[in-house]
Structure formats: C-alpha cells, structure tokens
C-alpha cells in the first residue's frame, strides 16, 4: 500500500472518530434501529472515503457528509417501507438493554414532532437535534434560507401551542 493510500486511510480514520457518533445519532433519530442506523452510517463513511480518493476538496466534505447521511436515511425508507413502525407502537419495539435510553429519546422526539408537517419537523430536527445552521439546512433541503427560518418559526409556534393545550 503506497503512502498516498495510507494518508487517505488515516484521514478516513480521523473523520470516523470525529463524526461517527453524530452520524449515528442522525440516522438513529430517523430510523430507530441500531443495526440499520449503523449500516447507513457505514455506507456514508465509505462514500466519504471514495470521495477522498477522488481528491474531493476538504471544505466541501462537511456538507457532503450531511447531505449523504440525509439521502441515505431517505433511501432507507424507500427501500424498506414495510419496516416502519407506527409511533404509538414504537415504545413496544424490543431493543437491547444498552439502547433503551436512546430508544426512549427517539420516541420522545418523534412524539413531539409528530403533529408537525413533515417539512417543518425535519427542519426542527436538523436545527435543534442535529445542531445545523439555517444555511446548512437550506442547502440540504434545497430551499432559501428565509424559508427554512420561516418553517422553523411556524414549527416552534405550533409546538408551543400544542404544549399549552396539553398542559
């Protein structure tokens, strides 16, 4: 294995160490199954490695990673539509003892965002849970930044009113 390849592999290792937990959280919060979420993350990281081999600019890599994991999650639901569990039954899905906490978190957030229109709930997830900026969200969703902000505002207003009604 030549020196260039070794460099690429160490660069990949750095990205994996830095990003794997964030990517896993991103995938798990949408998929809700550890094995499937990790498969998606693995595929994304290998795509990143292929991009590195094609000498992709490092500055665009960050946005590529975000877009890649988002697309991979969408593809997952296109491939496996039958594996979707209704939210009210999600708590009964058997999970490993070690995953109980993150599964409860998955159910909590999805229940909170369940009443929102899909495009708004996704923006709230990306903003609050995945900690992306409005600029990144706009690029990812292919919408103007102002629209992303506007949808976020409506979503927050809706959540406030829902919580008020609930309480």
């Amino acid at each position, binding site marked *: *294995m030549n020196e260039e390849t070794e460099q690429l592999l160490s660069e990949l290792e750095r990205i994996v160490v830095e990003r794997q937990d964030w990517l896993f959280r991103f995938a798990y919060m949408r998929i809700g199954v550890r094995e499937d979420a990790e498969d998606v993350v693995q595929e994304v990281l*290998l795509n990143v490695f292929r991009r590195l081999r094609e000498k992709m600019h490092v500055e665009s890599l960050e946005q590529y990673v975000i877009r890649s994991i988002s697309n991979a999650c969408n593809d997952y639901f296109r491939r496996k539509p039958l594996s979707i569990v209704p939210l009210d039954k999600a708590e009964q899905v058997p999970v490993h003892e070690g995953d109980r906490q993150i599964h409860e978190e998955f159910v909590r957030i999805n229940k909170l965002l369940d009443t929102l229109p899909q495009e708004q709930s996704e923006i709230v997830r990306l903003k609050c849970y995945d900690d992306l900026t409005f600029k990144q969200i706009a690029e990812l969703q292919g919408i103007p930044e102002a629209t992303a902000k506007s949808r976020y*505002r*409506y979503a927050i207003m809706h*959540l406030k009113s829902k919580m008020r009604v609930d309480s």
Partner: protein
Amino acid sequence: MLSYNIQNFNQVLNDMNNENINLPEEDFNEGLEDIEQMLKPQCEFKASDTLKDEVLAQAREEVKPQRKVNLWPWVAAACVVGFAMLWFTPPEEKKADAALHAHLVSAYHTKHQRMVSNQMDARESFEDIERRLRIEGAQLKEEFKMSNQIY
C-alpha cells in the same frame, strides 16, 4: 414557564402552512429557549465500538490492488482440454481388442501375400493350380471368419 397569547392560538394553527404571513416577534421568542432546550438531545448517542474497525477494514479492502491478469479464460481453456481428453481417450478394453484385430488382419495379409507369391509348379496343369488355389482360398476364408468370430 410557557406563556403564550391564547388569542393568537387558532390564528397560528390556521397559518401553519402559509409561510408568507409574518408572526409577531415577541410571540415567537417567548419560551423559545425552553422549547429548543427540550428539543435538544437528552442523552449520549454512541455508535458501536466495531463500527470504526468495520469501516476501515472495508476501506482497506477497496484500495487493495486488484489482480490485473484475467485468469478465467485460461481456467476455461484448461477445462475444455481436460474434457476433450476424457471424451476422446478410448477405454482400456477397447485398446486391447483393437490391437488383437490389427494383429489378425496383419497375419492374414502376410499369409495371403505369401500364397499369392507361391511359385507355380511347371508340371502342374492350369486346372490343378486353380483347384489348389481355390481350396487354399476357402481355407483362408474360414480362418478369417474364425478370427472375426473371436473378435
């Protein structure tokens, strides 16, 4: 904690999908931090310890130099030759029979040639020679038939 102007409640719900309507800034900011805090991750998400190793192993596999010589045509050719050899090689029994047949035929021809080349006795008449040759020919015919029966 979450105080909200209830009079705007129905209005907000109706306007949910209409993005051109501006919401009052003070309504939006009220309790915003609490909601955002509630929507943030409340626990740590940790990918499996094996994930990194699996990714790196697969990446190493992808960069491993590939064999450049195509071996499959040679393997296919070797298979064809082997099959042809098996198909065309006669079985051992047939070989022995064929050798015996060749030996008998050769013996017959040798004998026949010897007889034909027999010098005719000048004292024999033409009829005697013809009779003798006929008898010898019939004998040879019998022998040849016998040998064919053995074969």
